């Protein structure tokens, strides 16, 4: 009990932080047959933004989306067989997402697709971060976007650069 508290405590301390601590999942990389690890902090985000071509409408949209973001962090593991990660691994992430400010927008539980959760962090009325947690038998993916995520702009990316159509309705602006 004390041991589990000691494990969870650091994540509770970071609960209000829009950036999730994903390092607890690093040990899964050794078991996975495919790992995606994206760490783009604010500095890299600004550098990458310089490469977007303003004359290209698609790239301009992506640039608009990432402007103002503080970072994008992704950890995704695909395994050959089931049972390579445990509920405790997921809990290290969920514990942070239960902190104040985070709101779970959607929780989809599917036998075929696994469990999908979408969280938003609200600073007052402003969105301060986004988290997506997807787990099924052979896959575990965590996406963490830090900063004011504009879902309208995200919806505008549909069908571009291999981004699938989401069908997200744009919110009406007054």
């Amino acid at each position, binding site marked *: 009990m004390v041991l589990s508290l000691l494990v969870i405590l650091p994540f509770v301390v970071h609960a209000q932080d829009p950036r999730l601590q994903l390092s607890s999942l690093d040990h899964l990389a050794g078991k996975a047959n495919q790992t*995606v690890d*994206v*760490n*783009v902090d604010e500095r*890299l*985000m600004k*550098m*990458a933004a*310089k*490469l*977007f*071509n303003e004359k*290209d409408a*698609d*790239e301009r949209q*992506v640039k608009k*989306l*990432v402007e103002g973001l503080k970072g*994008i*962090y*992704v950890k*995704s593991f695909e395994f050959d067989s089931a049972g390579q990660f445990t509920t405790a691994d997921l809990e290290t992430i969920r514990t942070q*997402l*239960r*902190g*104040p*400010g*985070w*709101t*779970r*927008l*959607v*929780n*989809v*539980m*599917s*036998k075929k*697709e696994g469990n*999908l959760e*979408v*969280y938003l962090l609200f600073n007052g009325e402003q969105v301060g971060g*986004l988290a*997506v947690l*997807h787990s099924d038998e052979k896959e575990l*993916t965590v*996406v963490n*976007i830090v900063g004011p995520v504009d879902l309208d702009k*995200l919806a505008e*990316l*549909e069908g571009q*650069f*291999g*981004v*699938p*159509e*989401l*069908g*997200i309705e744009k919110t009406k602006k007054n």
Partner: protein
Amino acid sequence: MKDDYLWDKTGQPDPEIQKLEEILGSLRYQPKPLELPLELPVSRRRNYLPLLAIAASLLLALVAGGIWLRARTQRAPQLHEAQYVVPPSPIEARKPEPITPKPVAPREEIVVNHKPRHRSVAPVLSKREHEEAVAAKEQLMMALRLTTEKLSLVHRKTQNPTPANQIKNQHRVG
């Protein structure tokens, strides 16, 4: 001769003439030194020569500066274009466009049609920074692709729920 007196004062003078001489003698010219009044208004002529010299120098400097700038900007575009060329991003690489060589304008036309160019606002990245930015951009695009893929899955599931799925929307945690 009576009239000789009138010409050279010889001969017998005429009393009438002598009388007239006495009367008009007071008005005779009497040489005396020029006396200038003490408070004579002096009108100084302004000497514009130094001012003209300064104006001419300034004008010459301006003309020389203009010629120098013109000569400099005629050579600058080539350097400018070489400096700010950004290599095509992986996204651009996927959509190759045929490269059409630009017709080279005659030198005279360049000079005549030359317009002062505004310097590009895109800062120059060093080679290392550029490589870092390209890698960051790739990571960014991968993260966005993964995020939108997951959101698409969520959208699909929430729009077409199967009875086996358990969906909870707008559930606030924390």
